């Protein structure tokens, strides 16, 4: 199982942005969602998640808001900003190009 620590920093950012694109989520939910969708392959550790979230917040791609969670406790929800959405599109395109190129090399070198 590939550990998320093997991922480059930028890739984790991309995952987080993609995950919260549909709706705002708190940190726990983001980690769970990534785990779910990747069929348990990618498990984001808290040690990587929160620093990444705070970095993204600083760079202005995401915005944080405190709200009531499903359990009734207060939690910090992160949502995409307009700039973040644009960044997500750019990074997705980059990622697609990059992975396609790697696939080509591995398949037909």
């Amino acid at each position, binding site marked *: 199982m590939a550990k998320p620590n093997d991922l480059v920093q930028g890739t984790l950012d991309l995952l987080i942005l993609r995950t919260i694109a549909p709706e705002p989520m708190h940190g726990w939910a983001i980690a769970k969602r990534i785990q779910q969708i990747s069929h348990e392959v990618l498990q984001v550790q808290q040690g990587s998640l929160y620093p990444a979230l*705070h970095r993204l917040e600083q760079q202005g791609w995401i915005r944080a808001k405190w709200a009531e969670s499903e359990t009734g406790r207060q939690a910090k929800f992160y949502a995409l900003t307009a700039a973040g959405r644009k960044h997500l599109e750019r990074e997705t395109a980059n990622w697609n190009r990059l992975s396609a190129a790697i696939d080509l090399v591995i398949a037909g070198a």
Partner: protein
Amino acid sequence: MRWVEKLRMQYQMFLHRGREAGRLNAELEFHLEQQIAENQAAGMSAEEARQAALRSFGNPAVLREQARESWSWNGLEALARDVRIGTRTLLRSPGFALTAILVMALGIGANVALFTLVRSVLLRPLPFANANQLVEVYEADAHGAFQDNVVAGGSYSSWRDQSGSFSQLAIKQWRDYDLSGSGNQLPEVVGAQMASWNIFPLLGVQAARGRLFTADDDQPGVNATVVLSWGLWKRRYGGDPGIVGRSILLDARSYTVIGILPAWFTWPNPSVQLWTPLYHEKSPEVMQMYVAHSFDVVGRLRPGVTLEQASGELNAMQREIRRVHPDGPVHDAVNLRPLLDAQTHGVKTGLYALLGATGCLLLIACLNIANLLVARAAARGREGAIRTALGGSRMRLLREQVVESTLLSCAGGLLGLLVADGIVHWLISTREEIPRADAIHMDWVVIAFALAAILGCGLLAGLIPALTSRDTQVLTALQESGRSHSGGRGRARLRQTLLALEVGLTVVLLIGAGLLLRSYWQLHSVNLGCATSNVLTMELHLPKSRYRTDVSRIAFFEQLTYQARALPGVADAGLSTVLPGQEARRDDVFIISEHPALAQGQVLDAQTRSVDPDYFRAMEIPIVEGRALLPSERGPDAQEVVVSQAFVRQFFPNEDPLGRHVVTDMMFGPMPLRIVGVAADTRYDVAAPPYPTIYYPLYAGGELSVMLAVRSRGDAAAMALAVQKVIARLDATLPVAHVLTMEQIVGHSTDDARFGATLLVAFAALSLLLAMVGLFGVLSFMVAQRTTEIGIRIALGAQREQIMRQMLGDGLRPALWGLVLGVATSVGVTRLIASLLYGTRPLDPAVFVVVSVTLLVVAIAACLLPAWRASRLDPMQALRTE
């Protein structure tokens, strides 16, 4: 905009740190709870769930730190924490902190003060537009005999009319005027400048009120005009705007005030209080002469013309002038200097030398503090080792050390700025001849320099102790038994090296101080050749308008000395145009009638003084041959002169001068004057050998300005009032100037040397004290370190004297190295202050020897106590301290 958001977030984070930290905690706790809930839902018990969650969570503290590290103010927070801890640590040892701060304050204060002086006097440009185009022009001798001679009026006219390198050339001369009139204010003597009308346009100065000179004012015979300085206008006329257009009396003649200069204009120095047009004051004949040198010339180069080009052009012009006028003292070369350089030339070396000395002092202060910090680090070696073992980074420890030393230097620096302010004010008030003294103040460059000095010192003093702490020593430090002075040999060696450097610098300062002190002593003991104790002097200028005839002047002089002598307490009184020790002032060329004609271009030069018959007796200058002048030789009958011994040595080496004749065109016309006596040599300057002098009869009646010398039986200064009353009785509107005793005049000429020597001696003494304290500290440290070893040796039978000698040797080793280092450096460096020395060579062996001996004695004294204590160790006690 992204960066706006970012900035806003950083701002919020900074202000609401506590709240944000709380929220971060809440966020992480929430995550933890969710994980626990999930674990429980997966089937674990509450306890297992919690432990599993915690395990997967990792160290929350590290997590929190990592999250917070992404926040930008983490660095600031860490710095604030270090500062807090540093302050607490320093407060716990107040003695050390106070000493260090004082030492720093002194070092930084002295440096900032000197730098303020250097910056304001030497480095800051003159307050004129395009000041780098301004030059001062001197006449010179192509053979190098004269370098910066004053200019003749004729030369100036030629340059002005023919030169293409200058957009403007102006000429000026200093002059003292008797200012009187207007109300019941006392008459006073004011310093003034006579200048050509274009001096103010050349400099780029506008009038603050009224107007400045035009070409029409600068003619002989027109209405006399004068421009006042701002200072004089405020002081004497109360800033009354109505003074413009009114007349004032200068030398009893009426001058119309046409304008006031702006407040910032204090060129060439603040003592110039008014300006008059030169061509109006001087006769046209003088202004055409090539042989009478007495003026300063200032020029503004045309844009694009360099100094070298202008110099070449003027030199060619002057050579041509010499070719056309081969006789007499006509110069054949020209020397150009930038105006700023001309003004500061004399003090440049001295100021830079002082700056070097204060730099040394600051370095010594830093080394001292570094030494002290190393000692402290040694005492806290175990603490550092434990912290390193627990995971603290070396950078952290280093940062703490540097913050601590920077705190010390900041505190010291702030105090030092106050000290610097005081020093600058003191320097300006005691040293009148510092040029541009009005421009001296601390500006941003000085503050920046001070900050740089503070930070530099802090870093230096903080990093040096860090050199000794290495990770590999952690184990050794932990293993060492709990002696409070553990520190290893590395530290001791470092301290010894620092001490050797300190001693070296101290030696350099000591040698410099010794050389300057010796110079001053030589100067001080120079005999001027006349009476100097209990002699009061003052300067008088008779106004030409009230003393038109020689008879009236002679009458005044005669009455003056007669009545002065009649005062109780006065032994004698005499008059001369220039007194010994007042520096060259006036010299002239002459020919000796009985000698063969001079070769073309050759001139004979001697200093000229006009004296009354009582002068030699009053000033106790012996007449070695012939006689002094007689009172009967007056007016047109005054045809006799007295010469000095130097004159005889140079011009009559093998013959008797009595009865020979000299002819001095400038002063007496073509009439030959008979030499009737030879007076003993006097010096015009303490630092120069006696110069040939001709004493003319004052009673010829041609002079208007004289110095009165009154020799009293008791204290000379007490006679001042009585003498001034005598003068007032003779002429109520005649002011006197420069009332000084001869000792003060002599003092003036040794002032520079004495001041420099005093300062440097103070610095050297201070650094010697610091070095001594350092030696004491280091040896005590080493003894404490080796207590066990010494105890064992004594127990095994070593003699106490042996121990003492050995400890003494160990302690003296850095001192000896420092001495060698210092002497070697001095040999190279004292060359630079050679121009400040008088009668002392830069490598004067006496000074070097005395300094070495002094240092050794002081070093031995400093090391004696610890060494003695080492020899007195009780071996049982020593072995028991574990």
